[in-house]
């Protein structure tokens, strides 16, 4: 049980970090496009990205199951052309947590970009910096607090994700067990002691994440 606990904790933290790192580049890019550019289909993309926030996680999980399942649009292609299986593996856990935390990241970073004055970016352009250099040296550093906050939110959401994960990844001991799934499973089996242990680790992990982010934010504002 105790080696299981560590294995599950490690797996949960690893999944949360991986999914956050995976969504960070596209999340920042999309947030910038939403904050700074007008393009056709923008409001459609805006709505699609927000959808996982408002529909039940289990429903999102079901959609993912249909997309990534063996007969799904993406799953079928992945398995036939690349031999990659998604559903009921760790990859499904990462995809579920990534999709569920993506809207939180995009929203937070978008607001941060909108709070950077375009005038400051304009001046940087007249000083000889091209759009890329302006983004890396002006926009992103000035929005760093929002980017950190968004990443922490996404990480925290990934740590606790349950509904979508259980649909696409199931609960396979040693393969797709996360802390949230384990708490539910233990309670279901009447193993209250075990549930409390999982609960304690979840709280400790979340506490550590929030504490670290507060420190990072304080350093970013200093």
């Amino acid at each position: 049980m105790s080696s299981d606990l560590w294995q599950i904790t490690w797996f949960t933290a690893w999944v949360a970090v991986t999914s956050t790192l995976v969504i960070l580049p596209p999340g920042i890019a999309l947030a910038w496009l939403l904050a700074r550019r007008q393009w056709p289909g923008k409001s459609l993309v805006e709505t699609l990205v927000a959808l996982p926030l408002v529909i039940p996680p289990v429903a999102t999980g079901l959609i993912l199951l249909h997309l990534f399942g063996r007969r799904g649009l993406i799953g079928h292609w992945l398995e036939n052309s690349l031999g990659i299986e998604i559903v009921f593996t760790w990859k499904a856990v990462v995809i579920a947590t990534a999709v569920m935390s993506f809207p939180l990241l995009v929203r937070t970073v978008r607001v941060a970009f909108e709070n950077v004055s375009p005038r400051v970016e304009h001046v940087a352009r007249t000083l000889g910096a091209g759009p890329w250099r302006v983004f890396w040296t002006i926009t992103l550093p000035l929005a760093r607090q929002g980017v950190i906050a968004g990443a922490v939110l996404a990480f925290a959401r990934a740590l606790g994700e349950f509904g979508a994960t259980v649909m696409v990844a199931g609960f396979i001991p040693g393969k797709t067990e996360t802390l949230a799934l384990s708490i539910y499973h233990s309670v279901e089996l009447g193993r209250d002691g075990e549930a409390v242990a999982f609960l304690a680790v979840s709280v400790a992990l979340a506490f550590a994440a929030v504490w670290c982010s507060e420190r990072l934010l304080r350093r970013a504002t200093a």
Partner: protein
Amino acid sequence: MSLEISHLRLPLTSFVLELDARLDAPVTGLFGASGAGKTSLLETIAGLRRPVDGRISLDGTVLTDSAARIFRPPESRGVGFVPQDSALFTHLNVRENLCYSQRARSHVTRPGISYEHVLDVLNLGSLVARRIGSLSGGERQRVAFGRALLAAPHLLLLDEPLASLDRELKDQILPYLRLIRDEFKIPMLLVSHSADEIVALCDDVLVLELGRCVRRGPPSGLFIVSPRPHHELAKPTDLSPLNDGSA
């Protein structure tokens, strides 16, 4: 310097900015009430706005030409821009702000413009290690001038550089603008809705009203230069000097 603006057309919210002018004075003033299109004109010259029509060239180099489908991006125009709020980079310190442009760091500045010289003229030496948040309004504006100068522009656009300062600070900063004009010989286009600034600095003035140039000439011909202290000069029209920042 010669800035040629021909058949320029730029639709703004409530009127169309239209201008035909050849500017060749060392310092040209753009005078007019808030919302007359002065800032929009500066932004168009800097390449931050794209006109629907027209041609702008600087010393023979085409900056924008709608007919030939030429639009040079702001980073390759060599046109410096100092906005009203100075727009300093608050995540960098004073030295990093001054050296933001590639030219400032590679020391490929024009003859007569070196880092040391700019620090010296603008009296910035004691500020270089300071954070932007710790600067006063006047200091911020001086850093903004220095940052623009160190990019070695062929033309410097100043958008109400003194408007955010109180009268006492204005009197302190105005001499720096004169020094920039006389020391670095960079042609300047100065937007202002204050007659005293125009009289103090400019050789040629364009008066803008709703996007059109309604009068032009040397400041002595446009303004009644009275013997009173310079901040109480009469204004040519009753333009509100109150700053609403929406120009």
